[in-house]
């Protein structure tokens, strides 16, 4: 997939833009854009998976069932309490060292390459953080709402789905936008497990030229992604605003 993107998206963009770009960027333009797409796709997928995971975790944390609440609390504690880099290394170099024979061909589909390991760990990581953000918003809603919903005959889950979560989601949007930006910055760490994301490409470009502008260019591209995320969440906030 990424080969095709490189050929049909990165190459034409660079072909058009290179005359107006500074030379350090123009020389490695295709590499930069290949990395840029990888980072963006990694982000879209991990934010989506992480959001579903966060919802489930937040509900489990809030539920009356002690077992569910405890499992969710342990997951959240482990992934928020250890560095992302450590999680990546344990999954990639640690679990991955058992090889295909040790893990079975099904698990090897995940652990067999850095990209999927990166995606899973980033999703689990953001899932844990986002769950806390959502839980915090729910806890801060007036308790009367849940009581009223229950009094009108809704089950706990239905009340959550119809009454509580939509409001909580609106409250936590700014904090959640911040989490997505943090995740974007954290995603640069997947370059240490042989993923050619924006950081992976940048380090490879740097290895060939030793010019510090190489990193400045990467910083600008990360800023562009951060800008996109901020803009997206702003528009979402505006749409969801009540009254």
């Amino acid at each position, binding site marked *: 997939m990424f080969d095709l993107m490189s050929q049909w998206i990165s190459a034409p963009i660079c072909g058009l833009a290179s005359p107006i770009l500074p030379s350090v960027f123009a020389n490695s333009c295709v590499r930069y854009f290949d990395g840029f797409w990888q980072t963006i796709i990694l982000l879209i997928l991990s934010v989506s998976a992480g959001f579903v995971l966060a919802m489930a975790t937040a509900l489990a944390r809030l539920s009356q069932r002690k077992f569910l609440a405890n499992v969710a609390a342990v997951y959240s504690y482990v992934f928020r309490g250890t560095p992302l880099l450590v999680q990546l290394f344990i999954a990639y*170099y640690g679990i*991955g*060292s*058992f*090889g*295909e024979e040790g893990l079975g061909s099904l698990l090897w589909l995940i652990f*067999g*390459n*850095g990209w999927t390991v990166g995606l899973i760990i980033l999703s689990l990581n953001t899932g844990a953080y986002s769950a806390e953000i959502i839980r915090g918003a729910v806890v801060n809603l007036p308790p009367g709402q849940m009581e009223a919903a229950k009094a009108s005959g809704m089950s706990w889950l239905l009340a959550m789905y119809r009454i509580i979560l939509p409001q909580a989601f609106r409250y936590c949007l700014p904090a959640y936008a911040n989490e997505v930006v943090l995740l974007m910055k954290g995603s640069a760490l997947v370059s*240490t497990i*042989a993923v*050619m994301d924006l950081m*992976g490409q940048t*380090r*490879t470009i*740097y*290895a*060939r*030229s*030793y010019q*510090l502008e190489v990193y400045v260019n990467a910083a600008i591209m990360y800023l562009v992604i951060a800008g996109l995320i901020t803009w997206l969440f702003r528009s979402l906030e505006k749409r969801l605003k009540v009254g």
Partner: protein
Amino acid sequence: MFNTKKTILTSLTAVALLAGVGLFVAACSKSDTGIKIATEGAYPPFNSKNADGTISGFDIDVQEALCAEMKVKCTVVAQDWDGIIPGLVQKKYDAIMSGMSITDERKATIAFSDPYFDNSLITVGKVGAGKSLDDLKKPGVVIGAQRSTVASKWIEDNIGAKAKVNLYDTQTAAYDDLAAGRVQFVVADLATVIDWMKGKTGFELVGDKIDLNDHFGVGLRQEDTELLGKFNTALKTIKENGTYQKIYDKYFTAAM
């Protein structure tokens, strides 16, 4: 009267304090006259970390012989490969001895001593993975190499268009992935491959040595021409008096 006394006393204290600080600073910078030499510490047999945190290897032994010859005190500093050239330029240390090939790209930023090791590349794979370098171009093959090395550049320039290349921060990580089976081949410097294969079964060399007329040199700042001269003279001496050969024989077998 009292006031004058007080003033004199205060001034004296101030002078004493200042002198103390001055002496301290002088003492600190004086103990700093030796040379700091950076090495990666993850590239056996050239340099690798021991269990106690010290670094040893061919680079370190040659460095000790050179420093003894130059009659300077040398300290070894561990530094990640990625940042080893910027660190030199920013004067965090004065030289690099870390199995570093003399390349034109690096020469644009730093200077190199005369070569102290002749290097060539080799491919290693799991037994049966391939017989010649053409097998590296087969579809579905993933090749591993350390990022920012001559090997990684060679793969990208010669087979990169056809093959998927995984780049790692350390050479060890590339070998780990070969053992785990994520990559089918690793291309690296001959000496490190031989060292890694020692005592391991299930891996074999693929194809011939790749000779790129590549040499390792001591990396130095471009403006430190005096130090460069010293290194070259010392290198010449230890090569002539047999010290270098002794170190070489300690690490590299006739198999190479």
